[in-house]
């Protein structure tokens, strides 16, 4: 293939994969809306829609430069507003520009930016589910901007921008840590400061479930996310590398399948019934977990990694409820817990250098170091941002607005006008 044709093929693949990842916004939107109450549907849809617009501006202005711009081992200091020298698609030593950390991929700068942007957007949209049904719209907007402009890119620089974790041997192919755990840590900080939805945890210590209003939406959303992952992981080659993208796609799918089935079995055995929301969470857990190791593990290992994720996610949901950390859609269990698991799994299952494959503990130790470092930074930085928002404009809607629904309170409209929008009659709450 001529160099020009190679650039064209690589660019086509990267942009197409980016489009698949972009579509994950629809997946998150449907999943989260379905798993929340009808009276908050407009608010959740609005958050999930607007978050990509926010991410686009934030990542263009600051985020991309901080993450991939040349600078120190802690952060990038070049490339604001996509500016600065750059002769992409030149690669390696032929590359001259300020985004040296991306000189390994032979696509135009715009393609690099587009692909990385949809990843940044994914991290931001994870937050939405955890803080759903009680956060102020404006506070979510402001947090999302800061997350994508500053917090996400700094952790990302350490791993993908040529920073200190990359130098320390930490490896995260498509972002179990860089994207998913980061989103999860940022969300956890927000969720802790917000507190649970009113009525979720009763005084007698029991959990009062707040069922989602549309399991069809939730299922469609999960399936869209599964599809989107075929861009997320195979696209992270950032090259039309025939062998790699096919095997990564297959590994990705097998982990999803194993996560789906493992969560189904776990829910069936541990909870009595195969709860659909757990089946969906299990699939996504498998996908999150395989995101880091998808390019460097075998098909068999992918199945094991996904299966463990599927078991983990069910118990994680129960665990967070025990701690009274309210997560309406299970995003902490899916993205945070399994982002950590997937990152660790790379150290254990890597065909070359993995602990279980005779490679010693070095990779696993490097993985743990990265998990802790990125987690500590992201959680602390996010907590600061949330605290600042809480101290100024506030982050939680009034109790009255929460009970009435954020749709009328925040947006002055309903998702289903003409239907009676209210808590299901079943939600008596006092008994059981």
């Amino acid at each position, binding site marked *: 293939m001529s160099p020009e044709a190679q650039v064209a093929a690589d660019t086509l693949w990267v942009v197409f994969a980016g489009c698949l990842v972009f579509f994950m916004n629809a997946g998150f939107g449907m999943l989260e809306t379905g798993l929340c109450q009808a009276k908050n549907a407009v608010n959740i849809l609005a958050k999930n829609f607007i978050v990509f617009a926010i991410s686009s501006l934030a990542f263009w202005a600051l985020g991309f430069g901080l993450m991939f711009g040349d600078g120190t081992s802690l952060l990038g200091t070049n490339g604001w507003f996509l500016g600065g020298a750059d002769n992409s698609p030149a690669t390696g030593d032929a590359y001259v520009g300020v985004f040296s950390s991306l000189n390994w991929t032979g696509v135009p700068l715009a393609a690099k930016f587009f692909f990385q942007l949809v990843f940044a957007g994914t991290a931001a949209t994870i937050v939405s589910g955890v803080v759903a049904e009680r956060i102020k719209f404006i506070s979510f907007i402001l947090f999302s901007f800061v997350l994508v402009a500053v917090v996400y890119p700094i952790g990302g620089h350490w791993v993908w921008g040529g920073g200190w974790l990359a130098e320390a041997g930490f490896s995260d192919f498509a972002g179990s840590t860089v994207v998913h755990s980061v989103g999860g840590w940022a969300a956890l900080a927000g969720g802790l400061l917000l507190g649970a939805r009113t009525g979720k945890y009763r005084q007698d210590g029991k*959990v009062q*479930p707040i069922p*989602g209003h549309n399991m069809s939406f939730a299922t469609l959303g999960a399936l869209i996310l599964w599809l989107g992952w075929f861009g997320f992981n195979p696209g992270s080659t950032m090259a039309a590398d025939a062998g790699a993208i096919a095997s990564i796609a297959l590994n990705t799918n097998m982990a999803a399948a194993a996560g789906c089935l493992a969560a189904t079995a776990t829910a069936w055995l541990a*909870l009595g019934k195969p709860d659909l*929301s757990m089946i969906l969470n299990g699939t996504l857990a498998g996908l999150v977990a395989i995101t880091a190791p998808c390019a460097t593990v075998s098909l068999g290992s992918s199945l094991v990694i996904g299966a463990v994720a599927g078991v983990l996610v069910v118990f994680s949901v129960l665990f967070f*409820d025990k701690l009274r950390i309210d997560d309406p859609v*299970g995003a902490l269990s899916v993205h945070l817990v399994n982002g950590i698991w997937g990152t660790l799994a790379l150290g254990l299952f890597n065909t070359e250098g993995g602990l279980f494959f005779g490679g010693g503990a070095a990779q696993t130790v490097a993985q743990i170091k990265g998990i802790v470092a990125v987690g500590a930074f992201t959680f602390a930085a996010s907590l600061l941002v949330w605290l600042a928002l809480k101290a100024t404009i506030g982050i939680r809607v009034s109790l009255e607005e929460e009970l009435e629904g954020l749709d009328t309170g925040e947006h002055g409209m309903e998702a289903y006008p003409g239907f009676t929008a209210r808590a299901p009659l*079943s*939600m008596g709450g006092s008994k*059981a």
Partner: protein
Amino acid sequence: MKKIESIIRPHLLDAVKNALQEVGVVGMTITEVKGFGRQKGHTETYRGSEYQVDFLPKLKIEVALPEDLVEKAVEAVVKTGRTGKFGDGKVFVTTLDEVVRIRTGEQGEQAL
């Protein structure tokens, strides 16, 4: 004239409706309702936690009848609406003071 209000299981609507028509009922009104009786609803689970569903979905069928049809109509509802399990519902029979057909202004049994 009597009014029969039957609270039934939603999936038995067709059977009850057909049986009522067979005994001579010519019109009816149905409403989706929710309620509970002595069993006080049931429990469901969501993401590992049980919760009480107090109000279960039922259908209410209202029919207005001349006196001579009442017994057969009640019998038809009871026969086709019964599964023998808790939650089969109830039939309420009340006296109607007046009925008016809006189109013509006819009153009483003429309007049924």
